[in-house]
């Protein structure tokens, strides 16, 4: 083994995206401490650049074969690069929305871009984790920043409640994660994924399985898969909307990719066992996400249930085994994110008398007062509902196909039925937009918000639909490098 110092020096060129994020966060704190909140705009702009830059840098530095760095604690590979692009870009979009929102609300605090960047850094570590320590550190860095972001409006009861609830429940799941990891360590004597994999291949016993199930529960919590979803609606509702937009996108990618890593790398030999767990998580999430949303009237709570259901579909991909599963899950996420960010951008755009739209009824008659906004929202919602010709349909098609090929036809049928039930509440939103008599006009949307919404809609149709072939090549190359 290389000397630690040599190893560190050799590793640094491979972790440039992470260094960029960490560097921005550290320098940003200093600048902010010196300049105060009047630098909010500048720091946010730099943060957007750093996040997007980290995503781009990940692609530029993409290796042809997996590279182990930092003494094997992390790996730079295709899967990680794919995830980092999605995380970097969606976090950049959420930060841009947040900068715009808080500037308008006269609530600029310079810590916002820094906390968000640190959370993204935690996700970058998560998706590259190669041992139990970096896995836990990544998850915790992400979660701690997320608690703070959820409670960002300190003087608002709902936001503080959201932060506290998130913190308490998430701490329990972190405890589960540690507990599970300690079981794995105890029964294999190893923290590194490769070593765990070889120990697991020799059997490993029920203790190892117990540890795996505990870790899966914790990861299910982080990605808000039912039945570990209870925090999601409250946190989504209480957190400021740009923060919710962030929660609904980047952390989901990180958690799904991390789960894919845990399942397919150290525990590949346990597939028959973990498959039952993932199938159950997927089925319950799809059904509960669809049914739970039916009676919601708050937009953000509705989107919370929507994200629970969508995680169920992504998990259907993971449950389908190595042949097609990860590819379909990656593409599902890649097609889910732009629609999701676009919808939150539109929710932010709907402001009336200085207050943002809260309920489904607030959207009444949007098609008459703001026809373009209504058209974008229609596209994005139908994409998330999985109706063609939008990209969301292709995502659902691919996970269904993975499930059918893995002989999980019943899961695909259940997913189809759940998609129909879910369509009912997306239609309820659209019914308010199109069919109801118009309410008062919304204030004009800012350029950032409009550009984000247009970009999200353009990605769902036609860009990603036409570029399906390129996305396929990329996702397959990313997965083939590892599994």
């Amino acid at each position, binding site marked *: 083994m290389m000397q630690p110092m040599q190893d560190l020096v050799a590793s640094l060129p491979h972790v440039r995206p992470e260094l960029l994020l960490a560097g921005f966060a550290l320098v940003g704190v200093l600048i902010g401490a010196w300049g105060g909140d009047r630098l909010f705009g500048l720091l946010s702009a730099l943060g957007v650049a750093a996040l997007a830059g980290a995503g781009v840098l990940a692609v530029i530095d993409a290796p042809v074969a997996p590279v182990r760095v930092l003494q094997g604690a992390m790996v730079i590979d295709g899967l990680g690069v794919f995830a980092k692009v999605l995380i970097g870009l969606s976090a950049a979009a959420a930060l841009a929305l947040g900068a715009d929102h808080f500037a308008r609300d006269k609530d600029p605090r310079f810590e916002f871009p820094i906390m968000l960047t640190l959370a993204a850094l935690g996700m970058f570590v998560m998706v590259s984790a190669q041992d139990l320590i970096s896995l836990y550190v990544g998850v915790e860095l992400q979660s701690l920043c997320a608690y703070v972001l959820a409670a960002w409006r300190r003087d608002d009861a709902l936001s503080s409640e959201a932060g506290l609830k998130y913190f308490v429940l998430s701490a329990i799941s972190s405890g589960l994660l540690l507990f599970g990891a300690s079981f794995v360590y105890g029964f294999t004597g190893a923290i590194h994924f490769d070593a765990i994999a070889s120990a697991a291949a020799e059997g490993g016993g029920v203790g190892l399985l117990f540890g795996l199930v505990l870790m899966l529960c914790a990861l299910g919590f982080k990605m808000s898969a039912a039945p570990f979803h209870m925090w999601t609606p409250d946190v989504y509702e209480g957190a400021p909307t740009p923060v919710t937009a962030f929660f609904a996108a980047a952390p989901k990618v990180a958690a799904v990719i991390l789960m894919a890593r845990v399942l397919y790398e150290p525990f590949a030999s346990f597939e028959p066992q973990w498959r039952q767990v993932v199938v159950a998580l997927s089925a319950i999430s799809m059904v509960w996400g669809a049914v739970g949303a039916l009676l919601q009237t708050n937009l953000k709570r509705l989107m919370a249930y929507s994200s629970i259901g969508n995680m169920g579909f992504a998990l259907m991909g993971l449950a389908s085994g190595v042949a097609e599963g990860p590819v379909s899950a990656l593409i599902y996420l890649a097609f889910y994110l732009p629609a999701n960010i676009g919808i939150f951008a539109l929710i932010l755009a709907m402001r009336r008398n200085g207050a943002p739209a809260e309920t489904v009824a607030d959207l009444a008659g949007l*098609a*008459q007062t703001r*026809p*373009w906004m209504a058209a974008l929202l*229609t596209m994005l919602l*139908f994409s998330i509902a999985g*109706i*063609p*010709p939008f990209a969301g*349909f292709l995502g659902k*098609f*691919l996970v*269904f*196909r993975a499930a*059918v*090929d893995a002989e999980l*036809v019943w899961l*695909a*049928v259940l997913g*189809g*039925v759940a*998609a*129909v039930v879910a*369509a*009912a509440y997306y*239609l309820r939103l*659209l*019914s308010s937009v*199109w*069919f109801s008599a118009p309410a008062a006009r919304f204030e004009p949307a800012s350029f950032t918000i409009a550009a984000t919404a247009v970009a999200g809609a353009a990605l769902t149709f036609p860009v990603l639909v036409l570029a*399906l*072939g390129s*996305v*396929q090549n990329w996702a397959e190359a990313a997965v083939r490098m590892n599994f």
Partner: protein
Amino acid sequence: MNWADIVVGLREFLRDWPLLSIVTFLPAAGALLVLAARATLPGENPGFDRGVRFITLIFTIVTFAASVLAFAVFDPTNPGYQMVENTPWAFGLAYRLGVDGLAMSLILLTTFLTPLCILASWSIEKQVASYMVLFLILETLMIGVFCAQDIVLFYFFFEAGLIPMFILIGVWGGARRVYAAFKFFLYTLLGSILMLVAIIAMIATAGTSNIEALTAFARGPGFDPQMQTWLWLAFFASFAVKLPMWPVHTWLPDAHVEAPTAASVVLAAVLLKMGGYGFLRFSLPMFPDASHLFTPMMFALSVVAIVWASLVAFRQLDMKKLIAYSSVAHMGFVTLGIFSGTMQGVQGAIFQMLSHGIISGALFLCVGVVYDRMHTREIAFYGGLVNRMPVYAAVFLLFTMGNVGLPGTSGFPGEILTMVGAFQVSVWAAAGACLGVIFSAAYALTLYRKVTLGVVENPKLEGIVDMDAREWATFVPLVLATLIMGLAPGLVLNFTDASARAVATAFTGGAP
């Protein structure tokens, strides 16, 4: 230079043109143009709305012209798919278009009716640009369904069509429009999502999504009989809802009644045909064993639909609802003909689909004419219209007779052929269908008597005026089409002969 030379020259000239893509996406281009105009010009004024109507009308007429061009270069003697375009997409799927006689005739029906629908929508005042954009997108998607030669692409168009229809019903519909729009969307979606899973299973088994190759696979190795049963049922769930068959037809009266006139026309004339098209394109050729297995059920459901829907139609108080139930009955003839599996039956079913497209569309337009004037569809409100609107009464009479299936109108050949086809397989089913013909005369003539004949008793009808120039322009093509198809059915039958033979052969597994 005679006609054949011109066709040969035209074929040569257009050989490398993506003609089907042009037909499919011309309306979408029109929609983009309207959107661009809406974005740049100050909208929401009468001049802008008039311009949008004309742009839409021109684009739909040009689309019709393009489809006539495609029709001219189409070779009816060739049983295979023609004008094939093939561009690989991803995951083994392809953007693959192609038509046979069946698809070509339904495309022509679509492009023929859409300009008439736009004419009938001239009276729409609310959000004109959105309405026209949705209608143009809907036309693209409808044509795409019939052109698609990749099964996933087919599904893509098939289901995407729900979106514009949902909004058209919900925004421009009648009093219970929101309920009807939801019912239409969710009912149809549930049916088709099961079909999606079946499509995926088919691709997994056959290793291709190309419809032609799937049909060949079904002929060669074929799908396992037990699997066929499941696949057949999944496709049935989608097409039976779409067609619609009894007992899953309940969305149709609501959707038809609440939709604006032009959307009702498109629903009845084209969207319902997708169900019949699906049976002919997928269920019979790809799952022949299962189709045989389920033939008794299909016959029973068809006869029940014919008799029961006719009786229900007789009791309706709302003109549109009556015509909606008569659609259910007429679609019963279509399924009866298709599942007889005989050459006459299949030919009759195709003919009946085309004829019903024109006649039911025309009947909805007839209702639209008086609805535009009086804003009610209640049968009891009207009476004695012949005294005030003689031309309208004549036109309405022609289409009523077509609906009954009077020889000389396009309604007759389809009904007689399906019954001849069914008779060869099941005398009882044919007898039941005959009963339906009698009932159809009962409800259609009663409707006509109550609305047009007699004296004007309702004082509100005193001032009603006959059809204006725009309405003439709408109805003349329909009248001509009905008479031509009724008097010279051979024109259509020759055209669809090869496709029908292919279906019948696949079903009987040998001699047609």
